[in-house]
């Protein structure tokens, strides 16, 4: 079963993203939502880890949450897909099992 990992917390606040990346298998998907979207901005401490993860895992970020937090699209790490809520639904349907890292 391919998992869609869902991370909604900032990696600067909580270890949800770090643990997710430790336990995610190649071929999984990951979507950053809510405060989790801050990880998608280039130049932060976690950019390296995300870019490394992107070799095996498709990463998406919820656009409306980026916009809410004033993170412009051109700041998003290249290769991370920006999606809207409809795209989020599509991802949940595309992968077999959603897994929220709470």
């Amino acid at each position, binding site marked *: 079963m391919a998992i869609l990992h*869902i991370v*909604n917390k900032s990696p600067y606040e909580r270890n949800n993203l770090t643990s997710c990346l430790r336990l995610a298998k190649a071929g999984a998907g990951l979507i950053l*939502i*809510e*405060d989790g979207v801050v990880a998608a901005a280039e130049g932060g401490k976690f950019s390296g880890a995300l870019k490394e993860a992107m070799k095996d895992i498709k990463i998406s970020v919820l656009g*409306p949450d980026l916009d809410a937090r004033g993170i412009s699209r051109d700041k998003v790490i290249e290769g991370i897909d920006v999606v*809207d*809520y*409809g795209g*989020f*639904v*599509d991802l*949940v*349907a595309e992968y077999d*099992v*959603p897994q*929220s890292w*709470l």
Partner: protein
Amino acid sequence: MKFTVQVNEGPYQHQAADTAQQFVRAALEKGHEIYRVFFYHDGVNNGTRLTVPPQDDRHLQKGWTELAEKHGIDLVICIAAAQRRGIMDPDEAKRQGLDADNIAPGFRISGLGQLIEGGIQSDRTIVFGD
């Protein structure tokens, strides 16, 4: 696809309830079916009709009630979590000897089994929380 959505947090305190509501609307727009929305932990607080949020901001409870009334979505509040947090329907309030109830329209109180059943019957079960 059939989705079961679990909401673990109350309105406004966390974004979870908002994200869940947006997700549900987007899923309906895409033609999917929402089998059930199950409210657990502080999520049960989405089901009180007594909130008076500022008029220039979204009204989360009314959003849920509208989804129930317009789309027939099954909004289930876990009874154990509701009892702990004081979300009551008239029957439960009477049973507990309480002088008031506060459940919002469109919500119903039921057991944790409804969450498991949702997971069994749905194609995808997604959790929004903290």
